[in-house]
């Protein structure tokens, strides 16, 4: 890449679940201030990509560096928004409780949130348009509102780099508009945002760059040059039959994905 100090560098990343590779040799790097869409069919490894960068799943080979360092040294500059469906929304907590969790990373163990942290949470709630619902039980929110709660928690983290897993999935039109405005706002503040996205209609409108993924990296680059008919065909079209046969074989034989 042109810039010598990328915000995120992913090098030859390979990840397997139960020995079956879901990401294979993925290589790219992202510069500061970009809004990046991660696009690909179901099971392409989109969520796995950001989870492995966040250290939530083990890498079988390759590495990723954030701000040129190891993840552990820069955690406070990164925010991760899981899929909405990954938690039990019947958990006894209010909107404010969940958003306040965004400040826990900087607080550290044992310490309790102080007034400044509560103010940060309240500001985040306002910027996603949930003011007045601070004390509402999260179980009583609509899907779109729940997604906004997750986004507010991320904003309360006040990070430099954001990873968001399907923030637009199952939300109403108003929420979608709010979210994209917030993402563009983050970008304008010089922050970098990676978004797992599945709605091909809006890709060109939303993202500066796209990562086209289907187990392997099909294409990566500026949206206007990369989000092309040909690349989409390759991402969504015919599967690489040989590759998937080898993947199945690896799962069966419990072979390591790299010789150590």
């Amino acid at each position, binding site marked *: 890449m042109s810039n010598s100090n990328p915000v995120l560098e992913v090098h030859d990343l390979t990840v397997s679940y139960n020995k079956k590779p879901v990401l294979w040799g993925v290589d790219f790097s992202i510069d500061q201030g970009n809004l990046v869409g991660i696009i690909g069919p179901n099971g392409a490894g989109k969520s796995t990509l950001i*989870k492995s960068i*966040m*250290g*939530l799943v083990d890498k079988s080979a390759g590495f990723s560096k954030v701000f040129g360092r190891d993840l*552990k040294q820069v*955690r406070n500059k*990164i*925010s*991760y928004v*899981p899929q909405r469906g*990954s*938690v*039990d929304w019947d*958990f*006894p*907590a*209010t909107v404010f*409780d*969940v958003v306040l*969790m965004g400040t*826990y*990373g900087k*607080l550290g*163990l*044992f310490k*309790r*949130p102080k007034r400044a942290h509560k103010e940060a949470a309240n500001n985040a709630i306002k910027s996603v348009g949930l003011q007045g619902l601070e004390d509402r*039980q999260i*179980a009583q929110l609509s899907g779109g509102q729940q997604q906004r709660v997750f986004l507010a*928690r991320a904003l309360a*983290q006040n990070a430099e780099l954001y990873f968001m897993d399907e923030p637009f999935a199952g939300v109403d039109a108003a929420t979608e508009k709010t979210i994209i405005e917030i993402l563009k706002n983050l970008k304008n503040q010089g922050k970098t945002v990676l978004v797992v996205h599945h709605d091909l209609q809006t890709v060109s409108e939303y993202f500066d760059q796209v990562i086209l993924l289907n187990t392997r990296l099909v294409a990566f680059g500026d949206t206007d040059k990369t989000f092309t008919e040909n690349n989409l065909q390759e991402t969504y079209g015919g599967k690489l039959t040989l590759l998937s046969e080898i993947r199945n074989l690896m799962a069966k034989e419990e072979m390591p994905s790299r010789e150590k």
Partner: protein
Amino acid sequence: MIEFNPIILNVVIGATILAITSSIVGVFAFLQKKTLVGDAISHAILPGVCLAFMLTNSKNPIYLFAGAFASGWFGSFLIEFISSKSRIKKDSSISIILSLFFGIGMTLLSYIQNHDYSDKSGLNHYLFGSITSITTSDIYLFTSVSLITLFVIYFLFKEFRLVSFDPEFSNSIGINIKVINRVLTSLTVVAIVLGIKAAGVVLMAGMIITPAAIARFWTNKLIIMLNVAVIVAMFSCFFGSYLSYISPTPTGPWIVIVMSFIAILSFFFAPKKGIVFRKIKQIQFRNKIIEENILKALYQIGEKANNFNMSLSIEDILIRRSFLLIELKSGLRRLTSQGYLEKNDQGYAFSPMGLQKGKRTTKLHRLWELYLTNYMKIAPDHVHDDAETIEHIITPELELKLEELLQYPVRDPHDSIIPYK
């Protein structure tokens, strides 16, 4: 006056400790959906108690506590190990460990009973619990261990809550969820070990789970949930201990019976989630529908006759719209007593408020029909039944939105005039 009796004092302190620690730990186990693990741990404790007794030939609470903790913890470790390293799923590995450890424990217990251990009397209390068997030295140990447990929960409360709600996010901000979960599991083991002498290994899981499940019925707030769970557990422990003392039968079953009784009551009567509450809500909604339908029928009769002041008999109403006679009569009675209708010799007439309400229901019905035909492209002869339901649930805010969206139309799809204020 109650004369000072060390046994009663021990029972009271023992029951309090048991209730507080097991219910607080139980709330987190419940929220993490790990209640079955609690059941396995409590059964897995038995071999540890027996082995500790056989090795030391004493019932010193420290040895027994250590043995119980070790085997409970080992059991929970094996559950994780089996489910992560093999194809056996978690529920199966829980059952395997539970039955294996309990089997070993029962074998050891019968071995002890049949052999010459001098101090063996009372060891079988660990099976179903006997709160009066708690000694003063037990109390010292229990109190200090439970205080440590409560301190750990106090200081790690923020982390426990976060990990229970969203483990992936916790991991992403650098919390080691494996360590936090291991601490939680250890606390569960400790709470169970503290309780087994009073409640017994067989039913200890109930002590962990039931107060949390009951509390969840009554509140949506974690702090209140913890408090409700503690109160329920304390009441059940005291009352259960009393029942076991007067019967005289083991303590554990009585505590669990009392708790389960509270759980059943909660199931029926808890606000919002209880069955009775929900049934009442349904009846109220049904009554509301009948009342609004009556007012609408009266309005439509008035509309036709161009006179909203006339009195109508039950027969007049039934010509316009069919009702169950009994529902119509009770509906009319309620509407009269609420001031929407006035009763006179000829029948029923609108009060100003009643006219307003009848007009609004008619309006909502017609607006919704229009919305269905204009926006959802449903044929005009198919929209009536849908509007019959929707007209009763539209809130004033939605009413305004609907009016603005349709731009205050004059007529509905069937060419009836839509009445505004």
